[in-house]
């Protein structure tokens, strides 16, 4: 059970490409625009374009495509399950039945819906992976902090919330490593994770998650003390080593995103003119 190898979400691959050099705010807004676009795509043609665009971004950022996608492996069962759910449970009034078994029947509308939803989640995941692979956690914080700053005026502690989120993201890898270690330790002590029925298997997870949670709390406590010792008292009065400023790369990226959005919207409208 090598869990850590497959987790690319929250990992940062340093680099010097123009994607890396983009202002984090540009990247966050671009990701938000792309994710919003995903919600409106209801046919395959725009997805084709979306796929090309995503591949182009991955290539431009110098990340090996296989690496970017291997993070998807743990997600695969969920994607497949979702696809099946949509396939069998989605019903439309004039749908044509393709396969029918017992009380379940798969319709073409269900198939279409299954494909769309699976693709949507797939791309959602890919976009977020690209964002975190090319943006250091601290730039992400800086970007989010700067974007969420207006919320401070209505009393939301945006800086502290962002800090919490970012630390959670940093500990994903550390906790995954730890989970791996605990599983091996418990296997060495005779817990058979692959044997028994569903209930026994579920019960086997307790000796894994209990130590994991206890350790996570211990880590959290140590981290708090260490942060406090380094004069952290919350967002107030903090300055930044790196000041954000948008440059030429960001302007070009903005233009690219706008063109791409326009194109996708055009395709959506021309394929489904009724929307």
């Amino acid at each position: 059970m090598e869990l850590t190898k497959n987790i690319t979400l929250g990992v940062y691959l340093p680099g010097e490409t123009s994607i890396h050099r983009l202002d984090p705010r540009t990247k966050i807004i671009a990701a938000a625009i792309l994710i919003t676009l995903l919600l409106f795509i209801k046919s395959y043609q725009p997805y084709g374009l979306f796929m090309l665009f995503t591949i182009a971004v991955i290539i431009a950022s110098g990340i090996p495509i296989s690496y970017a996608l291997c993070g998807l492996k743990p997600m695969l069962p969920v994607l497949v399950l979702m696809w099946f759910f949509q396939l069998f449970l989605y019903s439309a009034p004039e749908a044509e039945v393709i396969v029918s078994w017992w009380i379940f029947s798969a319709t073409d509308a269900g198939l279409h819906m299954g494909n769309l939803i699976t693709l949507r989640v797939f791309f959602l995941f890919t976009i977020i992976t690209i964002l975190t692979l090319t943006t250091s956690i601290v730039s992400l914080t800086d970007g989010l902090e700067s974007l969420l700053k207006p919320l401070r005026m209505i009393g939301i502690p945006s800086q502290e919330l962002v800090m919490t989120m970012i630390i959670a993201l940093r500990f994903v890898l550390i906790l995954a490593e730890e989970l791996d270690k605990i599983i091996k330790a418990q296997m060495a002590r005779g817990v058979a994770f692959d044997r028994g029925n569903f209930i026994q298997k579920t019960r086997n997870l307790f000796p894994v998650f209990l130590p994991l949670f206890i350790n996570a709390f211990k880590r959290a406590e140590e981290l708090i003390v260490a942060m406090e010792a380094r004069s952290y008292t919350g967002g107030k009065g903090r300055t930044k080593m790196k000041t954000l400023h948008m440059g030429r790369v960001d302007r070009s990226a903005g233009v690219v995103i706008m063109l791409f959005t326009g194109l996708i919207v055009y395709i959506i409208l021309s394929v489904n003119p009724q929307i």
Partner: protein
Amino acid sequence: MNPLIEVIDLTYSYQAGSDDEFRALKGVFLQVWPGEMLAITGQNGSGKSTLARHFNGLLTPQSGSVLVEGLSIADKKNTAAIRKLVGMVFQNPDNQLVSSIVEEDIAFGPENLGLPPAEIRKRVDWALDTLNLQHLRKVSPSGLSEGQKQLVAIAGVLAMKPKCIILDEPTAHLDPRGKREVLENIMRLNREEGITIILLTHFMNEVVHCDQMVVMEQGEIKLRGTPYAVFRQKEIILELGLDLPIAAQLATGLRQKGFKIPEDIIHTEELVDCLCQLK
């Protein structure tokens, strides 16, 4: 000269007032002088971490007082100023690094001080230079060795330009090479940058490099003095559950076998010199 840190009759109990009250410190007096390298040693649970956490206001005295450059730690108004003067490095580097980029983690402390960006950049560069970490500036700490991670943690404290750095068992998690690297760098910070070092450790081979040492047991300071003076009291050291440095153990053994080895050997180099002069 005034002491940098002055501890006067300090007591501290965990779960004070309850049935499981644990008296971690029972009336400790201590002075830490500017520029010295002080080792605090003792078994687990002897109170050394509890004591050290009073030096930068992570804990506040239940009775007695702690003064850092004359500022009382009990006064919350002083906390920010004291944390700027006294930095602290902990045992597990993974649980004290905040960022996934070395230089950005080092900037975390100065950023908390609210310094202007150019000044933060200058300090980060200086900290990286001082600890020879320039080549690691852009990498993620998760790819580093434990020793390197600990050096990054030290750099993060160094960038705040403290007068004193407390290191709470900084080498406990490290392999021999990491231990040596961290110790050498700590010694260099003390000698070349004049930073006061308070080193909490179990390892007697680290203690011998310090100017002064304190041995704690059950919340009290049992021995203090230069390592030479303290390690002369062999029986008491062993009684307190600690060891002599390797060189001292070996010297004692050889002396018992009839070799003419002088007393007061704690450094390996001293022992080597003596052995080479034997006929």
